[in-house]
């Protein structure tokens, strides 16, 4: 009988840390923003009247930087598991510096785009889209850097250690996500051009 099945006893409900779970849901919603913009890009491109241009080589450099920053972030996370306070802080600082370098790189790349007459406004949507993708990504990255600063402060008040990993795990997850997101965006732009 169906009813009997439903009344079967079950053990204690297994739960994941709600904060980490919530972060994943947040990541899903950001992903939806970029998925929708990507499909808008594809739809618009398919309609024609689409300008083709070269992306700056600098994007390759910034891609490398963001991959490195993911490495240093993870290093910091592992250090937290091992209670190595110095490495936690070092990892966070290096990640933040690489994050800043990435953003400066993107900014310079925008200038290069402008110099080949690819503009955010007043031009073809193909041009504007590049700025929307990179700009929105940088906006989220700023959030990530703020998160890093918060973690750094926490590490100075001894709140990041092997028994309190939730926050740094969230920070790491978010940072990896941002790195992955950039690689996806770059690949998407290159492959669709």
């Amino acid at each position, binding site marked *: *009988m*169906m*009813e*009997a*099945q*439903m*009344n*079967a*006893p*079950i053990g*204690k*409900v297994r*739960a*994941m*840390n*709600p*904060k980490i*779970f*919530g972060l994943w*849901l*947040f990541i*899903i*919603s*950001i992903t*939806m*923003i970029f998925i*929708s*913009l990507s*499909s*808008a890009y594809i*739809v*618009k491109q398919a*309609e024609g*009247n*689409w*300008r083709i241009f070269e992306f700056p080589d600098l994007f390759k450099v910034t891609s490398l930087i963001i991959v490195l920053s993911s490495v240093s972030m993870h290093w910091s996370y592992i250090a937290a598991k091992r*209670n*190595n*306070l*110095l490495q936690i802080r070092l990892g966070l600082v290096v990640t933040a510096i690489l994050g800043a370098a990435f953003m400066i790189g993107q900014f310079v790349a925008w200038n290069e785009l402008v110099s080949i007459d690819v503009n*955010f*406004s*007043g*031009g*073809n*949507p*193909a041009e*504007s889209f590049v700025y*929307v993708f990179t700009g*929105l990504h940088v906006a989220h990255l700023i959030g990530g850097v703020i998160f890093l600063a918060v973690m750094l402060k926490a590490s100075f008040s*001894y*709140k990041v*250690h092997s*028994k*309190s990993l*939730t926050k740094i795990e969230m920070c790491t997850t978010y940072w990896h996500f941002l790195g992955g997101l950039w690689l996806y965006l770059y690949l998407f732009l290159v492959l669709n051009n």
Partner: protein
Amino acid sequence: MSVTDIQLQENTAHDDHHDDHHEQSFIEKYIFSTDHKTIAKQFLITGIFWAIIGGAFSVIFRLQLGFPDMTLEWLKPILGKWIDEGGKLDQEFYLALVTMHGTIMVFFVLTAGLSGTFSNFLIPLQIGARDMASGFMNMLSYWFFFLSSVIMFISLFLETGPAAGGWTIYPPLSALPQAIQGSAGGMTLWLVSMVFFIASTLLGGINYITTVINMRTEGMSFSRLPLTIWAFFITAVIGLLSFPVLFSAALLLVFDRSLGTSFYLSEIFIGGEALPNIGGSPILYQHLFWFLGHPEVYIVLLPALGITSEIISTNSRKPIFGYRAMIGSMLAIAFLSFIVWAHHMFVSGLNPFLGSIFMFLTLIIAVPSAVKAFNYITTLWKGNIVFTPAMLFSIGLVSFFISGGVTGIFLGNSALDINLHDTYFVVAHFHLVMGSASFFGLLAGVYHWFPKMFGRMMDEKLGYIHFWVTFVGVYLVFFPLHYIGIAGFPRRYYAFTNFDAFSAFTDLNTFVSVAAILTFGAQFIFIFNFFYSMFRGRKAPANPWRSNTLEWTTPRNPGHGNWPGAIPKVYRWPYDYSKPGAEEDFIPQHIPLSQTPESNLEEENELAKTEEVRESKNVEDSH
């Protein structure tokens, strides 16, 4: 640096915070509260406020449609310059009223007011949790909604008026401030307000999903969740996936409006002057918008359906028919809702082949919808029905869901839609299936859970009057609109007096307007009942509807943390109504199988032997 000086403070779960009873100040308790019950009430009150405004707007434009020759001079004190010298409603303001009516009703009343109220109120109470996963985020969710409301409200008083491009704000109209007044400042505020609204919805949704998955009490498996919770959960998932897309659509629109991009704009002449924008496409906006827009209609409807399932089962004194089929159909609806959006675009120049694919997918939605309708009816069938006001409103919902759903099948046909698109037929369709059905779900929910919210009962007699006037009124308003639509009346027109072909329908339009005004008036019976009962209502018994779910095991006025003692454990599904052999016609979820040998099925008797019963003294016995 040594590692020994690390201060090892375990972050223990926040679960037992309710124990340290510190006095909360008024502000902490009623304004910046993190208690899910208070936040729910805040959403409800704000929703009611918006419903009055949204309803009043519809009365004003119905006056214009039903009595095109009437002078509206007497509205001048409220509407000011929007009533011109001749006492006529300003034509552009008419569009603004329609736009604001739609925006307010769809987003502020039936999304925030419905999900915000009942997801917040019922999720922790029905799954057995002390509060939401994050009380702070929950509070933030309300205050973002509040901010969004304030901004939208301010837009009503702008010199150029609020947004006027329809609730769907299609560009190029909405993208060009010089096109109509309503596309100027009002449109900007609309977009800003919506950004906060999206943030609010996402914060709320993340919380609902996290709470349902992670914070259920012992024994509360997914197959024992009340259907209300299933509905809120699925709604939140849909919202999480679709609202970010609205954000994208709005963002690109903001860029087009303010920063000179051309995502949606191409080759436009306005006032004899060519705009520089080249290469964009307004159809792109429609795709993005309806990718949210269609799921949004289910975000509005599903919570109401969940509430109805619960109320119909309780008041039929019967288990809900097809519990799993109900869940399955909600999941199917949720999935399908993401792949039918282009049925709103059949006549936008969409490739007819694509049109037939979307037509096919759209018509499939009728199947899970019909499953739900049949299950409600079979639950009612031969039930021991108790006609509480909540029950009447739930049955009313089922009626609207069916009569409005049927017209969806006409509209979903891409050939028929060429004729019907953008006529009053569409207006009739969605006001029945979405507007009225969800609104009835909201009212049913208020009547049913009022005793838990405020510890008092609402007046039943007033409830019955409210129901009958509203139920009959809704049909009198929206049924004739089908005929008007088939006759070809386009929506969002200021007046039809210039078309001879339409003059035969003048009386019908007057009739609709009169019915609309009466129906709107009847809502004040409810508002009186609501506020009066809050302070003067009869004190509510512990379990007034003899219901099975956990919220009725809390004290009459549950405090922060919901249960004074341990959280009850759950031993059975929530629909053990009229179980053969049982003494009473209901067995609440927290009653162990081992205490009900007389009604257990054979398998349940087996299970009862191995059941671990937890002492829970504090649970008020609701028998």
